[in-house]
């Protein structure tokens, strides 16, 4: 009986490690990176830098939410840049060349993003095609479509409302709106992933597809909704990035794919294991954004940013592995049988 309670206490401790300590450590690391940025740039750390990290971290969080769900179930969504480009060019072309209303443009952009997310989901779940190559090919198709929409036109201007909302020029209580939205996105994501029925179903599916099926879950439907959420998130991020950057270039999304995957991995999610937590993902995103800002302020080649991202991911992978190892060893040594 005491053995049982020891095991339970250990499991509680280990899950606290994942749900509370890991995000705190990552957030502290993000702050540390900004403060250490003092070594390379006089202007760091500053209130503006903190706001920038939160704003860029918000865009990253919106993309990483769907990416994280996809990775929990063993896939990768590489169509992110394509969806972002399509959603961005849809809304920008609709508003500035078709003279349509922004509201309809936003609905259209989100609609097509959702649609192609669903197509990804159907191909992966029903036809059992490997996720990363399906989404990669879909990304190529979507970039082609975006090229078609903007064909022969100069890159369209962004709708004004989006610029005010997402470029940081609009302020609430003296803080840029995107920085505030970071917390809103964080809370909504937490509720969906950790507290909703959908979130629980995703975790179950991720830890075992068979168990999920035997438990009577609509496995295909859940898998399709995961990819739909990911497509929707990328589409939403596309709208935000149109406002943030001031125009709708086709390359808007290319630099957000790898950071979104890296944030999920650094946050401790193990691909296809059904283990991983949203609060760690978004704080990992903050840390990666802080690293990017510090590197950019030094003016060294942007290649070093990628190198550092890759190294951080490898280190994070090794750290999640040592977590698993410790738990397995404990389980075996504590096993009453």
């Amino acid at each position, binding site marked *: 009986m005491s053995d049982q309670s020891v095991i339970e206490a250990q499991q509680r401790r280990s899950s606290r490690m994942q749900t509370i300590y890991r995000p705190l450590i990552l957030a502290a690391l993000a702050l540390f990176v900004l403060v250490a940025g003092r070594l390379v740039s006089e202007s760091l750390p500053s209130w503006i830098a903190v706001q920038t990290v939160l704003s860029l971290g918000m865009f990253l969080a919106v993309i990483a939410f769907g990416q994280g769900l996809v990775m929990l179930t063993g896939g990768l969504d590489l169509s992110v840049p394509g969806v972002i480009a399509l959603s961005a060019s849809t809304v920008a072309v609709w508003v500035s060349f078709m003279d349509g209303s922004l509201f309809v443009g936003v609905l259209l952009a989100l609609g097509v993003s959702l649609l192609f997310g669903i197509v990804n989901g159907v*191909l992966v779940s029903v*036809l059992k095609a490997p996720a*990363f190559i399906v989404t990669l090919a879909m990304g190529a198709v979507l970039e082609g479509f975006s*090229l078609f929409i903007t064909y022969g036109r100069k890159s369209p201007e962004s709708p004004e409302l989006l610029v005010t909302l997402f470029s940081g020029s609009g302020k609430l209580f003296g803080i840029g709106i995107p920085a505030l939205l970071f917390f809103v996105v964080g809370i909504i994501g937490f509720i969906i992933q950790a507290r909703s029925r959908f979130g629980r179903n995703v975790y179950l599916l991720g830890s075992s597809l068979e168990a999920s099926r035997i438990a009577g879950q609509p496995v295909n439907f859940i898998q399709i909704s995961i990819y739909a959420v990911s497509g929707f998130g990328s589409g939403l991020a596309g709208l935000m990035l149109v406002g943030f950057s001031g125009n709708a270039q086709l390359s808007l999304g290319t630099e957000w794919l790898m950071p979104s995957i890296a944030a999920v991995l650094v946050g401790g999610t193990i691909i296809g294991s059904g283990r991983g937590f949203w609060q760690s993902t978004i704080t990992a995103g903050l840390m990666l954004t802080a690293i990017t800002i510090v590197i950019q302020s030094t003016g060294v080649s942007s290649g070093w940013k990628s190198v550092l991202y890759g190294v951080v*991911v490898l280190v994070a992978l*090794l750290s999640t592995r040592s977590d698993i190892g410790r738990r397995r060893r404990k389980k075996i040594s504590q096993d009453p049988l």
Partner: protein
Amino acid sequence: MNTKFGRIRQIVTDGTGRAVIFWLILMTIWLSLQSTQGMGVDARLIQSYLVLALPLIVASIGVTLVIIMGQFDLSAAGVIAVVNVTIASTLGSWNPLLVVVLMMALGGFIGLVNGLFVILGKLPAIAVTLATLIILQGLAIVILPQPSGKVPPFLVDGVRAPFVAVGIIVVIIIAWMLFKRSRSGLYMFAIGADPEALHLSGLPVKKIQLKIFVIAGALYGLAGVLMSASLTSGDANAADSFLLTTFAATAIGGTAFVGGRGSAVGTLFGALTLLAIPKVLFVFGVSDWTQKVAFGLLVLLAVVAGAFSSLRKNRESMLLAPYSTPTEGEPITATKGGNA
């Protein structure tokens, strides 16, 4: 049904056979349209097409080997980029043979690092190789920020000399035939089909897996040299498309993404097919964006068709022999084709 029909069905359901048929159809369309539109067909046209295809063929075969073994490797595009910028920025006047050996060793080393993380570290291959891909692409930009530099002229002329490309393709096919029947080749298929069973029967599974990662890395290195020869200069972003095209070539070639089944010859024709698509679209005169869309759709189609047929094969083999572990090819469908 008579056996003749069974034989035809066997070729069509076989991944390699399907790839060859698909390639032949595309080549016929391309070359006939090319000649009827007065653009002319000569040996030089075919030659340049093959030279363009060589790097993709070699890199895709590396990817295929890893997939047959039941793992994934996304780092090919990164290795090719680093090899390309290294040759263009520093090795421009070196002995070409030394360049080939050095670059293959570099690729092999990166494959070894991947393998150590995946096999000994027990980490998901897709995550590890994605991380090495990001690192290598970043390094390539650091080494050569702007497209520039030159590739040893002997290397460029050597690859473009008459019959060299055809020769390399023949060598690849023969090497695959030998490797497939070698001990390592057989183990590679067996590991992909059922690693647990092989481990239980006392075979050095980890050593073989590491070996395949190293071989794949060396092939990416060679692909990098070949790409440099056809590009004649250095560009850190030139290899980005290889991430999609290597897997697309593998899928069109009929290699199952679940491991244990596949063929490098199929992949070879998959790569040739993939590079014939833009040629056909070009003679049809379609525009830039349609080309992108058509390309992506065809890749999706190939992947879905491959996944679908391996799904069906899995069901059939489970029905017929619940505990057998087929090591290679599809003997079960082959016999079934005869008496269906």
